[in-house]
């Protein structure tokens, strides 16, 4: 086993890896951009190496800087987390060529699975079911129209180099294919430097079901069942659960076998996720994420397996200790992503400085978080701030537990996606398990749903009243921290009204 590894990431996922590594007696080298010099991951490793630069493109995405940090510190292996360089085959190769171990699949596997077109070819050859569509990208708008006619509407236009839901357009009318192709292609060109798109059938009422797999270097592979990630918006997941309501033991086995076949076809090693679209008993391969996923904790909660530990063991060359029949599923787990997003304005990115932080706790509540008071949330980095994960003996308990946990959560200074998750948990369709990938987008979240508006109004006015009074005493006193600290004339910390009994609830 490694003595020291470098974690080429930041935020909650860096902490996630550090925690398991520490438990295994492995030292962690963390790297940080200038922006992250106070970040939790910078503080929690054994050795922290500055990369310089404020932006990801000047730090976490610069392979040479990461490799230099690994060399300088004597790290034997690099864990990429998710995002950043995790699915960059070139970097994986550079790591190996530098004589270090890449904690992830072989570069060739990343390359094949990272290209939507190549992966479809490989999966077709391996007998993995695919959504009907083009194997080659459409050359231009006219070709896209022809392909849409052949595949059948509705169609999805997908960026060849896309990922994480970026660069996907859904078109329901043949007449709209041409203009949609132009916008989506332009967007893909800007985002990925590759404007190629391919056309495929869009499955209505689809559910996003994915299988977690793990392979060692000796040809053994097992799966850890499925996760359902149908609660998404613009293909960005918000709420995930394990197991999926629609998957029974028999289907789980079938999907698991197909997922293992997909991995074997590309010589996979380590942790990976095979994503499927599920609709009416059928499932189709979407893509394989060749890394640890954001939502991996719900699988850990239900199987009791530490996936990062398994990843590290596999990367160090050990054989899988678990056989497929050793993987047991108990109870139900849910994850909610806490993103810096303003829900009422349509999930626009939110920025600010985190203050007044209160994280949920209690039985079977796990919080994987990069949050701390004073954290600056900007636009340059991923909006994922934290994940709240709960486990319950059954789905009903897990939903109630998550709701309770989210009510405890408070992130001041930055808007988060938590209210949208609460709306989902409260929704009849979600509670009944009868939902698909459109549920979140169908919800009207434009107006907040809290029922304590009178109380909020009263508190805001009192807040303002004290603020004005302080400002009257001097410019310094307007500081927004401690707005009650200088309330005088006997107001102290209390405002009382001997109103009628009961008042207004």
């Amino acid at each position, binding site marked *: 086993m490694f003595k020291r590894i470098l974690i080429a990431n930041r935020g909650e996922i860096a902490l996630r890896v550090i925690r398991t590594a520490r438990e295994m007696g492995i030292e962690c080298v963390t790297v940080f951009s200038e922006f992250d010099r106070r970040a939790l991951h910078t503080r929690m490793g054994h050795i922290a190496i500055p990369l310089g630069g404020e932006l990801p493109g000047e730090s976490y995405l610069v392979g040479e800087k990461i490799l230099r940090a690994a060399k300088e510190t004597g790290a034997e292996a690099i864990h990429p987390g998710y995002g950043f360089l995790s699915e960059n085959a070139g970097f994986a190769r550079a790591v190996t060529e530098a004589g270090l171990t890449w904690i992830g699949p072989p570069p060739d596997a990343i390359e094949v699975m990272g290209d939507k077109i190549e992966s479809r070819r490989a999966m077709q050859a391996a007998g993995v079911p695919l959504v009907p569509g083009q194997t080659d990208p459409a050359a231009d708008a006219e070709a896209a129209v022809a392909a849409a006619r052949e595949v059948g509407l509705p169609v999805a236009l997908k960026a060849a180099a896309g990922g994480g839901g970026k660069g996907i357009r859904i078109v329901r009318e043949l007449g709209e294919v041409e203009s949609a192709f132009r916008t989506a292609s332009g967007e893909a060109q800007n985002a990925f430097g590759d404007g190629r798109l391919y056309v495929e059938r869009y499955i209505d009422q689809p559910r996003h079901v994915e299988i977690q797999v793990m392979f060692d270097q000796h040809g053994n592979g097992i799966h850890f069942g499925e996760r359902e990630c149908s609660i998404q918006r613009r293909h960005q997941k918000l709420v995930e659960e394990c197991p999926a309501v629609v998957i029974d033991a028999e289907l789980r086995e079938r999907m698991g076998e197909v997922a293992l076949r997909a991995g074997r076809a590309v010589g996979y090693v380590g942790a990976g996720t095979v994503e499927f679209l599920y609709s009416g008993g059928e499932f189709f391969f979407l893509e394989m994420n060749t890394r640890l996923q954001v939502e991996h904790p719900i699988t850990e909660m239900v199987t009791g397996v530490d996936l990062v530990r398994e990843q590290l063991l596999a990367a160090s060359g050990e054989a899988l200790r678990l056989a497929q029949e050793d993987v047991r599923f108990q109870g139900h787990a849910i994850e909610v992503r806490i993103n810096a997003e303003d829900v*009422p304005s349509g999930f626009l990115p939110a920025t600010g400085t985190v203050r007044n932080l209160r994280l949920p706790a209690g039985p079977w509540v796990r919080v994987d978080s990069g949050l701390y008071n004073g954290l600056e949330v900007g636009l340059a980095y991923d909006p994922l701030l934290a994940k709240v994960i709960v486990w319950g003996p059954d789905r009903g308990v897990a939903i109630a537990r998550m709701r309770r946990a989210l009510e405890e*959560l408070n992130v*001041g200074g930055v808007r988060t996606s938590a209210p949208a998750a609460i709306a989902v948990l409260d929704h009849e369709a979600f509670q009944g398990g009868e939902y698909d990938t459109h549920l979140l987008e169908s919800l009207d979240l434009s107006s907040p749903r809290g029922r*304590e508006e009178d*109380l*909020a*109004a009263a508190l*805001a006015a009192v807040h303002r009243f004290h603020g004005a009074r302080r400002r009257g005493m001097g410019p310094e006193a307007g500081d927004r921290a401690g707005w009650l600290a200088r309330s005088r004339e006997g107001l102290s910390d209390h405002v009382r009204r001997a109103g009628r009994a009961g008042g207004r609830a």
Partner: protein
Amino acid sequence: MKYYLEVNGRERLVELRERLGELSVTVDGEPVELAYERIDEEGQLLVLSGGRSYGVSIEGDTDQIGITIAGHLYDVRIEDEREHAAHAAEREASRGGGRVTSVMPGVVVEVLVARGAEVAAGQPLLVLEAMKMQNEIAAPAAGVVQEVFVEQGSAVGAGAPLVQLGPPPESEDS
């Protein structure tokens, strides 16, 4: 002291009266019983109201205040009497759409309308890119474009003015 509020988009009138060192509070004329205890310097409060206790978080400055109660955020815009009177004239002038501002920092990818153009409610005015996503900014109401403040490639901050819309012209048919 009167305060004019918008709580989650709904208008509220709050009156505070100070007497013998105590504040009495009414919301839309109804008294609200309120006692609170400051927990820390950050804005965490314990609020007692109507026999119930609430763990409340409050933040923000003079006219924009955010209050979180049990996981729900209440967005409050607040004006005192003087500000309310001053803004009344502005509100009147902005009928027909008013000023469209950027809700987030980003870069203008494309401007789709020009000065003098008539636009329908919901018609895209420009495309703004933020977080690698292109977002169409649509007209909130029908009107006429009086001014376009940005051009292709402009970097805008949150709250930056994008387009000024005036009232739509009288229909010629009527």
